[in-house]
Each structure stands twice: as C-alpha cells, then as structure tokens.
C-alpha cells in the first residue's frame, strides 16, 4: 500500500473536566472508505472536529499528503482538501440547491453572479452522484437523503482529497442508504479518501475497507474490516462482554392479552390533523409498549406530537383513564402525566447552554411553575440519582449540556422526563445516532419501565428494535395508520415490511 494521504499522531484534546482525546493515532489512505467506530463519548466527533480545524489541538501532529498541517478553521481545512458533511445537514433549506452548492464561492463575472453557469455546474456535479433534480428549486422541498447528497456534492466540489461523513445515514431509509453507498463507492474509485462515522454495524461492514475503533478517548486499534468479526468489533467498542445485549435478544416476545384487559391509559379515537396525519385510533395500556413502525415521513412523529399536544389535533377524541380530555398544549399533556422525548434532541429537546442539572429538572420545574423552585438539595438528589441510574458521563451535573456526546444527551432527555414520573412515555427515535452500549441500556430501560407499569409509545426506524420491545405494533404508511397488530410469535420484520409495502391490514 502507498503512503497514507492523512496521518494523525499523538492527538490529545481536553475540555474543562473532560479528556476527549488521549494520544490518538489515525491514518487514512486514498481510495478507501474508513469506518470510525466507538461508543458515544469515545471521541469520534472530537477527532473529526480536531481534524477539520473546528477545535485546536492540545498536542499531536497532523500531516496531509506528506505535509505537516494545522488547520485553524474549517475553511482552511476545506482549502487544503478536507471537507465534512455533518450528521445534521447544515445547509440552508430556504436557498436553492444550486445556491447551496456554491454559497460563498459563486461563479462571478465583473462581480456579478453568473446564475446559468452556477446551475449548469450544479447539474453536472449532481449527475456525478446520479442525482437528477431541479437545481433551482428550494433545497427544503427535497427529502433529507437528497439534501445529504447536495451536501456531499458541495463537499467534493470544494475538496478532492478527504471527505468526512459524520453519521450520514442516521436519518435515511434503506433505499436512500443504498443510493448513498453507491455514491461513496464511486467516489472511492475516483481516489477519494472517505472517513465514515456511523452507529450502524451492518453499514460499516457493507461499505468500509478498514475500521479504527476508539474507546474513552483512546484508540483501541485499526483493523481491516474483513478480518474483524462483528462480535469482536462490538466487544472492542464497549470493552466488555456482550452478555447484556444477548440477554435482550433472547427475551421471549412479550404477551399482550393480560395487559389489554385493563382500561387503557390513553385512547385516541379518530384523532387527526389535516396535512399531518389521517384520523387514527390507538390505545395504550398500563405496562404496555406500543411500537410505531413505518418509513421515514410516514407520520410516526405526527402521531406522537398529537398525543402530546405539541401540535393541535383538528378532529377526534382523546380519553385518559376513560375520561375525555382535550390536549391543546404540551403543558396539559404533562399535567396528565404524559412525557415526550423528541427525535430532534438538539432543536426540540436540550437547552444546550444550560447545565446537565438544569436540563434534567426543567420539565419538573416547569410543571411546578416559577414561584415554587425545587431546592438545590432536592435537585442534586434527583439529578444524582438519574446520572447514576442512566450512567450519564461525565457525571458532573454542572457541565453544560452542549459538551455531552449524543448518547449522553439522549439520556439527559430521558432523565428529564423520568423524574416527572409519567404514566405514558413517548419515545421518538430514542436510540438514533447513539452507540450499541447506550442503545442496549435504553432498550433495557424501556423494558423495566413497562414492567413497572409505565405505558410506552416507542418509535423507531429499526424494525428489530420495535419487534424486540413492543407488545403491540402499529404500522404507518403515507400518513395513515394502516395496521395495529399484537406482537405475536409469527410477527417478524418481513411481515411488518409487507404491511408497510402493501398498506393492507392483516
């Protein structure tokens, strides 16, 4: 093999209270897809941000194509040939596709933008990614997958050496993932070095040539993908036995009959909202986990938002404990002991500039009102309990929420709602974008909460997860709730997929 295009040696990076990277080495070769794996907080994001000049390095060296480099900003990194496409697409939805691709470097003549040239070159670029769309339409009108492609098109047009994809697949459906992988293979054959960060084990095996594993800010090792068995990879990532995970896998399907004999905690009848979700019926009983399955954009989140009052239903009735109620705002839902963890934890969940402690007590404090503050001691007691129970790291409650990794932020969100002791917990994609270890912990938590009598509405794009946890599965398709089935032994992923595909109730 030739020399690596990019080497990082002895990289260290420390934030107040957190050693994010400790003496990490990393290499990347031209013409390869390199998977960067690790649990939340292992240092993946920090490594990428250090590489692209978002953060300064405390110690260590970086060389690009044999030259020592030190980027002071993402712009410098881009000019040197290192571009990043982040997990949350950071383009402007209100600009056109072409404008997004060329923003800040529009082709000009006499200081004026040459629009036709810009459109033509955008079309050429996207054609290279086998994407044929109207480049003068607003970016926001396209699906997330297309937006991701546009971000990639922008990145490869700027730089030609190294492309970093940070969790690009976390919000894509399987067909879109295939499309992305096709593009990645093509770019790889063109000689680009691609650094691919993901939490999906299957995907890293599907696409990557080599894997580097990080754990707790240190490098565990670098392996050719073909020589590393999946189970070994997981063991290296979490650094412990897989017994916990397997235990969950082997759990028998959960039975429904006993649960459904009681009165439902919440029953929605003919509830709907024009333009969001067609009228649906859904009931959830004490101790029951109801899974919502369906493709991205099929209306899963909309169901949750109507039940929580985040959006107002324009028709239908909701009963709680058999009593008719009107849920117009989240506040009324919370008063009825409903909790909702949004899938967008950064925009709809965390208040990033508040501390972990403040984020955790927020919903409970909001319910009490401003004039009845929780005493500092009570706050610390509650927060300490949940930091320990959910294993939130770092354990210091006074750290700003923004400095936590994704999985730990998710746990903070869970803690916020668990201390309100809800009777119905709505979880929208609680395991998206987080690692295996944290994922297993959250799944186990859902099981133990429902065993304790909590009703749970569980939304996930991963069918296996839905099948593993749910007593009952509701399937959505094109903003209709098309089926509502008990999760018996003969229900499996294929059956649900068929239901999604055919739209027929079985």
């Amino acid at each position: 093999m030739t020399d690596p295009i990019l080497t990082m040696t002895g990289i260290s990076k420390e934030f107040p209270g957190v050693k994010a990277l400790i003496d990490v080495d990393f290499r990347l070769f031209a013409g390869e897809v390199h998977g960067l794996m690790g649990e939340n907080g292992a240092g993946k994001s920090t490594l990428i941000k250090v590489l692209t000049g978002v953060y300064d390095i405390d110690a260590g060296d970086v060389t690009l194509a044999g030259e020592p480099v030190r980027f002071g900003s993402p712009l410098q990194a881009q000019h040197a040939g290192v571009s990043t496409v982040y997990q949350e697409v950071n383009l402007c939805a209100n600009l056109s596709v072409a404008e997004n691709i060329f923003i800040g470097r529009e082709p000009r003549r006499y200081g004026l933008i040459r629009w036709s040239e810009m459109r033509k070159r955008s079309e050429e670029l996207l054609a290279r990614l086998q994407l044929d769309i109207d480049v003068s339409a607003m970016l926001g009108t396209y699906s997330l997958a297309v937006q991701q492609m546009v971000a990639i098109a922008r990145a490869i047009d700027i730089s030609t050496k190294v492309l970093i994809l940070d969790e690009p697949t976390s919000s894509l459906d399987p067909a879109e993932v295939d499309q992305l992988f096709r593009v990645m293979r093509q770019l790889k054959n063109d000689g680009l070095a691609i650094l691919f960060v993901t939490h999906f084990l299957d995907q890293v095996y599907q696409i990557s040539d080599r894997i580097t594993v990080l754990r707790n800010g240190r490098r565990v090792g670098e392996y050719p993908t073909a020589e590393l068995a999946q189970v070994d990879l997981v063991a290296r990532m979490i650094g412990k036995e897989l017994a916990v995970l397997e235990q969950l896998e082997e759990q028998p399907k959960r039975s429904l009959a006993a649960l459904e004999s009681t009165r439902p905690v919440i029953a929605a009848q003919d509830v709907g909202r024009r333009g969001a979700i067609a009228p649906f019926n859904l009931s959830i009983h004490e101790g029951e986990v109801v899974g919502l399955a369906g493709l991205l954009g099929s209306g899963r989140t909309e169901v949750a938002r109507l039940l929580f009052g985040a959006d107002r239903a324009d028709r239908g009735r909701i009963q709680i404990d058999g009593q008719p109620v009107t849920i117009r705002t989240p506040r009324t839902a919370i008063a009825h002991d409903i909790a909702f963890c949004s899938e967008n934890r950064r925009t709809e969940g965390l208040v990033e500039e508040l501390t972990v402690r403040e984020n955790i007590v927020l919903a409970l404090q909001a319910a009490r009102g401003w004039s009845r503050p929780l005493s500092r001691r009570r706050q610390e007691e509650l927060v300490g309990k949940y930091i320990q129970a959910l294993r939130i790291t770092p354990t210091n409650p006074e750290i700003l929420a923004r400095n936590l990794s994704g999985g730990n932020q998710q746990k903070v969100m869970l803690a916020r709602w668990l201390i309100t002791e809800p009777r119905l917990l709505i979880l929208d994609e609680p395991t998206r974008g987080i690692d295996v270890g944290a994922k297993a912990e959250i799944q186990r938590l859902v099981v133990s909460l429902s065993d304790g009598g909590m009703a749970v509405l569980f939304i996930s794009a991963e069918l296996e997860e839905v099948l593993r946890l749910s007593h009952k599965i509701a399937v959505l398709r094109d903003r209709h709730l098309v089926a509502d089935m008990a999760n018996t032994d003969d229900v499996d992923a294929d059956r649900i997929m068929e239901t999604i595909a055919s739209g027929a109730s079985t």
Partner: protein
Amino acid sequence: MRATLSTMSKHRLFWPVAVLVVLLLSNLAFTPGFFRIEVRQGQLYGSLIDILRFGAPLILVALGMTLVIATGGIDLSVGSVVAISGALACFLISKEADQNAFSGVVWAVALSLVLALVLGLWNGLLVAGVGIQPIVATLILMVAGRGLAQLITNGQIITINSSPYEVIGTGYELGIPIPVYIAAVVTAAAVLLTRRSALGMLIESVGGNAEASRLSGIRARQIKLMAYVFCGLCAGIAGLIVSSNVHSADGNNAGLFIELDAILAVVIGGTSLLGGRFSIGGTVLGALIIQALSTTIYTIGVPPEITLLVKALVVTAVCLIQSPAFRAKVFHRRSRPPAQAPADEQPKVEVPV
C-alpha cells in the same frame, strides 16, 4: 471539579471588572484626585460617588433590559417609559396645592410606577400574547411614548418645586446618595427574584431554546410577560430619579437614547443578545463602565463636539476585548510553537462555543 467551576465563573466577570478598573485608573493620569472621597456636611463627595449616583438610572434600565434580552427579546421603549413616568409624576405634583405635601408626592410616585408597569405589560402582551417581534413591538411604544409624554406635559417642560420629590434624585442618607440605594435595592430584588425562584432558569431556558422549552411545559408567555413588566417598572423608577434630579419633566429629552446605553451595558456584562444565559452582576458592571466612560470624557475635557466619537471608539475597543474570538486571534499566537507539550501542562481551554 469545584476549582474548574470557580475559575470559569471568575472568567465570566473578569473582563468587565478589568475594563472598569483600567478606565478608572486612567483617570488618575488626568485628575490626580480622582479617587479622593470627601465628607462634606456628613455627605460623601467625589468622582466615584458621582459615577454611582448618576449611573443609577442606567443601572435600573439595564437590569430590566437584561431579563428581556435573556428571553430572546429586546425593549426599545425604555427611554420613552423613563420620560412618561417622570412626566406623570411631575404633572401630578404640579397640580397639588402644596407641592411639598408628602402624601401628594407618594401618590404621584405610586401612580407613575403603576403606569410604567402597565406600559411594560403592553409591551409584554404585544410580544408574548400577540406574537409580534420584540424589536417591532417595542418600537411602537418607543415612538408613541414620546408623544404620550408630550401629551402629559402639554408640550411644555414642567418645572416643580417639591422637596420630598427632590429627595429621590438628590437626597442623601448616611452620607450616600438616595439613587445609589434605589439601584442597590432593585439589583438585590432582581437577583432574589431570578435566582431564589426558578424564574432565572426558566428565562434562560426560554431564551436558549424556545421550542424545547415549550415541549417541556414551560409557560413561555407568562415568563416573557414578567420580563417586560419588570423592565417597564425599572424604567419607571429610573424616570423618577432622572426627573427628580433636574426638578422637571422634559417629555422630549428625558431618557433619550438610554435604551442604547442599556443594551450596551447588558452586552458588555456578558449576556448574549441572542438570549439565554444572563448575568445581573455583569449588567451592573456594564452600566458602571458606561457611566465611568461618560464621566471620564467630561473630566479629561474632551471637546463636546467629539465626545460621542470618543465614546464610540472606547466602546468598540471594550467590545473587542470582551470577545473571546478576538482575544484568541490577537493574543493566542504563543500557543503555536510548543505543540509537543503534554496536554496536562497546557492552560485550560475555554468551553467551545
């Protein structure tokens, strides 16, 4: 961990304090007796006392502004509220048969503060109730309020001669000017109100992430409303001090441009204009910096026609020094060469923003 926290909290107010100290010290070069405080007839006199005394209205207005800005809003109408409350108080007193009657003054003060409160409520309703953008909503009262003040004074400058009222702006107690007491009491009240109840945290949450706050069940409207009401009340109190100081009400010029100084004080104090985290201590320091700057400009004898320019230049410098990004650019060169040093020996890095 506790040590890290204390260094961080120190950090937050470090630059405002440093700027204030430098500003005060620089006066020494021009006025040797700048720090001298004399006792004359049992009252304290000196430049430092003057800064506190004349800075009191700005501190008050900036306090209210801090809470409003922390919710993600802004209140441009405070200057008009200053004028209106002063105008109403002076108007009511001027109608009294005996302007020195204590009860009449109390009545006038109370009514003026109630009016200021109502004006704050008006702003709050426009912003939180109707949902108008804060800058537009408060612009209405900023412009219309001057008219309202003119209406109360009938377009004239009302001059009064009421010794109980003059105490508010020019009186002394235990050697210290009354306005200083008022500013201190309101500051303490603001700290108690926000930090001893959950109001401060909820304000920061609403300003930091409005949607997340709504989904957590926070009554954002109520929180915002309270911030604007408090802001109106603070401006009203400031208006009383200003008019009492000059024994008259001037609907046109009282509190003119004070909203800009107040916003500046809040920003210098470290509260982001985008909302979220706020610092009451920082705001008080910021207001004192601005007042000290004005005093400095007068005492060192900058020609009147260029005072505004000098002020602008100093304020620009202060803002740049406060900016971590600017400091990093100008002063951070040293961290480049010793790249091999182990991480532990490196200075603590600031939290990335």
